[in-house]
Structure formats: C-alpha cells, structure tokens
C-alpha cells in the first residue's frame, strides 16, 4: 500500500468502518510511515470527539465499584498477584516441545494454499491449535490455563515476498502471556535482511516487541519465543515480521476470540 492508498482510507479507519483486511493493510503501513501515522492520530482524535456529543445516560449503580475492583485486581492489588511467575520454566519447555514437532516446515508458506484452499487451511489451523493445547497441558496444570487462553494465527508474505509461518499466543489471567512465532521459507541467503524483528500490534497501533531472528536455518526457518513479564497480550492480534531494512515481510492476525 502506498501513502496515497493509505491516506484515502484513514478517515474510515478513524470512524471504525474499515473491513478487517483493509485495516490490517493500513496498520501494517502505519508501522513504518510516520507521516501517515500522524494523520491517522489526528483523524482518530477528531473521531473520538464525536463520541462525546451523545446526550449522556446515567451509568448503572455499582458499575464504578466493579471497574475499580477489576483494575485493582489486574494491577496486582495486595493479595492478588497478577501472574504466576513460576510457570515460566515449564512454558519454555512447552515451547521447545512445540518447536520440535516441526510445524515450521508443515505450516510455513501456506499463504498460497490458504488462498486456494481456505477450508483445508482452516482445518490445519484447528488441528495445529489442538496440538498446541495438548503440548501446553502436558507441562502446565490444566486448572492454570484454559483452551480459550490459547490462540493461533497464520503469517503470510507481504506482496510478492516468500515464506510464511504461524503464531501461537497464550493470553492468560494467571500465567505470564507469551507468544511464539515460527517462520519458514524466508531467503536464507539474504543475510543483509537479518535480523528480523517480530512485533505484535493492537487495534490502536500500540506495539510490543516479541523477539528477533538473528539467523535462519537452511529452509529459511526460525522460531522466536517471548514471554511478557508485564504486558498483557489481549488485543495484540496483528503480528508482523520486519526485516533489518524496516520492511514488513510477513504479517498475520491471531484470532483471540476463540
């Protein structure tokens, strides 16, 4: 997408009516284009103003107390430790096990196939998620995480690029959130593009760094695992892999609604 394409879509982004595909494309562009990002911020501020024009209705009784309780609980008020840090080692073990399944080779480069055979790709994805959940349950007590905490997304090459991959996320109220990105099919000979950086982006364009890839194997594959000590991955559903030049080479969306 060029700046011209993006600028044309920014008003609709600001008022929240872009399709998911368009929004992903625009957000991908905003990752690296400061000019468009500034315009997006200005229009977004204006759109937010519109929301305040509604004639206010009274809030339900007791809502304030529930809001305070939820924030305090999340922020780790006394006696409610936010995350069980003890789970770190076992999750790392789980990730090593996941990586050893060789999914990188199986899942990567599926962008074309996805386009051609969406139903089959969807089945593979569901199967991969199930296997991921199985591995996680082997090392983490099932009462500590639920299936709804584990999410999967697929990475596709941008424009005419090559490669693909997938993303696993654990977004849990009890365990430190983590993400794992497995890529394959990138060009191993293009060492000038190393290191690749993995970023997670939320709907507001806020970013989290999710690791870097310093080398690729002979198939152009690599795995990146990152555990987030403070950040909560809720809403960070857009995943981009950016090369050393700053170009987005792979991108995808994690479905956190499952």
């Amino acid at each position, binding site marked *: 997408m060029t700046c011209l394409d993006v600028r044309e879509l920014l008003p609709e982004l600001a008022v929240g*009516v*872009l399709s998911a595909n368009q929004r992903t494309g625009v957000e991908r562009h905003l990752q690296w284009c400061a000019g468009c990002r500034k315009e997006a911020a200005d229009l977004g*501020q204006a*759109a937010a103003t519109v929301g305040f024009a509604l*004639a206010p*209705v009274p809030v*339900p009784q007791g809502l304030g107390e529930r*809001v305070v309780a939820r924030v305090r609980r999340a922020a780790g008020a006394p006696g409610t430790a936010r995350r069980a840090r003890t789970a770190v080692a076992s999750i790392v073990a789980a990730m090593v096990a996941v990586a050893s399944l060789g999914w990188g080779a199986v899942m990567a480069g599926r962008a074309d196939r996805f386009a051609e055979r969406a139903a089959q790709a969807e089945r593979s994805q569901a199967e991969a998620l199930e296997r991921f959940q199985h591995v996680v349950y082997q090392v983490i007590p099932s009462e500590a995480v639920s299936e709804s905490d584990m999410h999967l997304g697929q990475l596709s090459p941008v424009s005419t690029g090559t490669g693909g991959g997938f993303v696993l996320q654990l977004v849990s109220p009890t365990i430190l959130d983590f993400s794992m990105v497995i890529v394959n099919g990138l060009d191993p000979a293009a060492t000038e593009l190393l290191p690749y950086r993995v970023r997670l982006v939320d709907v*507001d364009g806020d970013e989290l760094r999710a690791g870097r890839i310093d080398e690729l194997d002979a198939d152009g594959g690599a795995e990146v695992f990152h555990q987030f000590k403070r950040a909560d991955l*809720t809403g960070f559903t857009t995943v981009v892999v950016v090369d050393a030049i700053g170009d987005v080479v792979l991108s995808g969306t994690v479905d956190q609604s499952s």
Partner: protein
Amino acid sequence: MGTRSDGPLLAREEQQLVEGLLAGNEESVRALYARYARPIFTLGLRLLGSSEAAEELTQDVFLAAWRKAARFDPSRGRLSTWLMTIAHNLAVDRLRRETGVTRPHLVLVDEVPEMGGIDEEEPLIERDAAIRALESLSDAEKRLLGRAYFGGLTAREIAEADGIPLGTVKTRLRTALIKVRRANQDKERP
C-alpha cells in the same frame, strides 16, 4: 491525588491520573471513572444496544486503559479522546466478533447525535467541547460523520445510498474530521 473533579485537566494532571491508574491506585481509578464513565457507557449503549453490553464495555475500557497506560502520551492527545478511542475500537471489535462480519454492523441510530443543551445538571466538559467542535460543521457534514461513526456505514455504502461518487464521500469525511480536529485544537489544553 487531589485531582479536581470539574474543569478541564492540565496535561500534568492527566499524566498523574494515568500513572495512578497504572499503579492500580484506587483514587485514580475512581477519578477517571467519575469523569469518563458516563460518556463511555453512553457510547457503548448507543453502539451495542443493551445496558449489559455497555456495562461490560465500560469495564473493558478501563481495564484496557490500565494495560495501555504506560504508553499514554499527553503530548499526543487528550486523555478523554484516548479513552473514547479505546471505547469505540473495543465496541466495534466486539460487534465484528459477534456478528462475524468484516465490517462493524452497528445498531442503527439517528443519523445525527442528539445535541441537547450544554447547560445540563452535570455538564460534561468533553461533551461541551464536542458539541462546539461539531458546530463548526455543516448539517450535511454532521450527518455524514454520524452515519459513519454511529451508524457504521462505509464511504462506499454512503456513496451508493446518496448516489454520489465514492471519492466525494471520502473527501467530505476527511474534511469533516479535520474541521473537528481544528476546532478542538483551538480550544486545546488550558
């Protein structure tokens, strides 16, 4: 904290409130809630169509604000618009998830938001500013913004409904937003 409950907040007061939120400081959360819960709940009710959904949205907004608090930068915009953006995005995302459509399918509302008197019993500073900013728009521009922001209509849908070129709708939408932004900038922080 000692944050005032009325009058516009200074940038440093907004920063203090957000820092308090980040720390889970009860007083800060209460101060933010007192100022912003009503417009957020109102927006939720308008877009999601039920009090339960609006209530859930309001809780989610404050929780999301806590998560993002470290990244709030008062030099880049007001706390009020930051919160309202979070609220609108969460509401739209929720509708997308629930309806499974690729664009929001918002509850149909009147094309133009009510713009009642600004001398209500509990005047809302942000509402006052919003109404004044919207006054800088023509009636057609107000309707256009309302149809997109509250009605969830894309530029293409508006163009088709009105029988005008798509480019014209996009340009008008951008012009309307820029006018609102400018009107707001004229009355930025005290």
